[in-house]
């Protein structure tokens, strides 16, 4: 079944309150309560962090790793808007929503993670800035990216929804949309510049850790490799979401779009692997990958996941095979996640004896914030036109959502005044 994705359509026929949704909300609620406990008791009782491993999963997973997955809006946006891949327009709404939710959830958790969040107002006082700190760059760019380009790119979906629900005020929503259209290219430019900056700065964070990060990872190219990883992870994660929507909600697939997503993801991953290999050769540390160490094992797990992901993605694109595209997206996501997780945790070697494993509360909070984002995604796609669908699904949804006369069951159609 291959029908061209032409319009985004709400999943109007699906119930919102399902059991998995309740579970997700429950996890989110538990996390919210535990976050309050953390605020009162401090980070020590609530987490497994210590002075050697001062960063736990909240930063190293929810921010470092998950915002990589949330780079769909950045990566696919560049393919669509800069490189003119017009067919991929169909998935942009899915991409911007997933990006917004991953970033928003990550940033909210960051507020729980930092010890003295009330001092964050210093971000408004330029004379306090340390312009060379990668952390300042992130603290500045990430919230700005979420609050401006990502929010504005998501607004048309909301305005479209509101326009339908509140037809009396549609003039206001139309005016808002036309304002957005007027500034849209400038918003898009910001939406590509800011992630390039903060995704690279996430890599630059670990530069200052110097020799504490294993030489297979510690490299002057770390910022570039982090952005590159965000590239293929963004493609792979949006592919994954679309295929999950197909599996869970039986959305029709557009194999042409999925194949081109897979092809580009494979290309980016292949170039990325090439750059990383060159980096290891030029820094003359490649032999460390053949030493019998845990770091070398991790390196090979990362590399083989990504290489396999690229190969499977390519074959999925050649053979028009959705199953392979799914496997490939998973491999690329997990490979990229591991690459972005390792330097901060697995191959981070603080100078003194200490170990870190997230505590139960810490894990529950991390999982809960992710669950809240997933729950939000499920709600939003059911009410608003986010997921791509063929044209007939659009008409079906329109007809189903048009008000009916309760007695006769007939459609109530208001005709606009004739010209």
């Amino acid at each position, binding site marked *: 079944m291959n029908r061209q994705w032409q319009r985004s359509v709400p999943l109007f026929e699906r119930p919102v309150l399902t059991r998995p949704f309740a579970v997700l909300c429950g996890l989110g609620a538990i996390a919210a309560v535990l976050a309050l406990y953390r605020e009162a008791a*401090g980070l020590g009782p609530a987490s497994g962090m210590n002075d050697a491993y001062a960063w736990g999963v909240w930063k190293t997973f929810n921010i470092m790793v998950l915002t990589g997955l949330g780079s769909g809006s950045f990566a696919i946006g560049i393919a669509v808007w800069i490189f003119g891949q017009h067919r991929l327009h169909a998935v942009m709404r899915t991409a911007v929503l997933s990006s917004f939710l991953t970033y928003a959830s990550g940033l909210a958790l960051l507020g729980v993670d930092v*010890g003295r969040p009330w001092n964050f107002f210093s971000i408004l006082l330029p004379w306090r800035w340390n312009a*060379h700190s990668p952390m300042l760059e992130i603290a500045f760019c990430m919230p700005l990216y979420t609050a401006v380009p990502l929010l504005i790119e998501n607004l048309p979906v909301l305005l479209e929804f509101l326009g339908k629900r509140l037809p009396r005020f549609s003039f206001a929503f139309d005016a808002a949309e036309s304002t957005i259209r007027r500034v849209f290219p400038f918003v898009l430019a910001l939406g590509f510049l800011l992630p390039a900056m903060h995704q690279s700065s996430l890599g630059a964070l*670990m*530069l200052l850790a110097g020799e504490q990060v294993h030489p297979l990872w510690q490299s002057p190219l770390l910022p570039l490799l982090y952005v590159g990883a965000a590239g293929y992870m963004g493609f792979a994660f949006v592919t994954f979401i679309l295929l999950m929507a197909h599996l869970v909600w039986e959305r029709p697939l557009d194999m042409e779009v999925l194949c081109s997503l897979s092809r580009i993801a494979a290309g980016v991953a292949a170039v990325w692997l090439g750059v990383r290999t060159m980096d290891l050769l030029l820094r003359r540390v490649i032999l460390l990958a053949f030493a019998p160490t845990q770091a070398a094992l991790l390196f090979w797990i990362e590399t083989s996941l990504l290489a396999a992901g690229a190969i499977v993605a390519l074959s999925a694109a050649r053979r028009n095979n959705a199953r392979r595209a799914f496997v490939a997206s998973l491999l690329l996501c997990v490979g990229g996640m591991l690459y972005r997780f390792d330097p901060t945790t697995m191959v981070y070697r603080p*100078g003194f004896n200490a170990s870190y494993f997230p505590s139960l509360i810490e894990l529950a909070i991390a999982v809960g914030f992710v669950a809240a984002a997933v729950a939000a995604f499920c709600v939003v796609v059911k009410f608003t036109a986010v997921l791509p669908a063929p044209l007939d699904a659009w008409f079906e949804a329109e007809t189903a959502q048009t008000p009916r006369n309760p007695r006769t069951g007939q459609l109530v159609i208001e005709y606009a005044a004739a010209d």
Partner: protein
Amino acid sequence: MNFTRRHLLTGAAAGASLALAPTTAHAEAEAAPGALGLLYDATACVGCQACVSACVEANHAPQSASLDAARASERGLTTEARSSVKLYVSADGSERSFVKQQCMHCVDPACVASCMFRALNKDPQTGVVRWEPSRCVGCRYCEIVCPFHVPRFEWQGFNPRIVKCELCSPRLAAGLQPACSSVCPTHAVVFGQRRALLSTAHQRVAAHPGSYSEGRVYGEHEAGGTQALYLSHTAFGKLGLPLLSAESIPAKRLKWQKRIYSYLAAPAVAYALLAGVLVKRWRSHQVHEVHEEVTTGLRPQL
């Protein structure tokens, strides 16, 4: 060596006059002329822990913590003990040495480079690295980047602090020397200006060339130089002092980052280019949208 208020004042005056003189050297590569520091000589240390007790007391930690300092010291630096003295014993027991740990007050510190709102900052005159509570967000990046693993975070409570040696800044302001050096019975911990301490250290090495490891002063060049200096008969690496190159960590690691973000010039140019391309793309997209609206009769979706 006795350190008096006059030493400090004359040092500061000399520092001020030098600071006014034109200089071509990079600020990040050289210590301030009036940079203060500590010299720790492991060959003279008897491990009495007097310095640790004095440190805990001077920093207003609870009395119980002060009494317990010796035991606390075994755990290394904590939020109560800003310095520690540990015993190193080699595997075969033939080699032993005490080693004191506290903030190294690097000449170009990684923690200061990492700190986004300059909560950790370096005093321009004395070079002491201090922590300012009103600016710290508690991100703990300083703990990740410090090559000496010095900053400690208060993991308990809702109002945590970053705790590290600040060279007893309040005592310095009162004309006193730091607590640790003031009580050391063997002059194993000496306080003074970095330049003076360096020459003292070199004199000690020259006087007893055989008794010092590697015949050098640790901290003279490590990571761009530190204001706490070490002498030892045991290899520095064994005492937990990391082997670091002479280039400071920020200079070495943030070279490109600094260039790319200087005056935000590169991001501004990138933005202008992106916006230029996108304005063009957006126009052709709108033409495409109109075309689609005509063929399908549906309002375009952004």
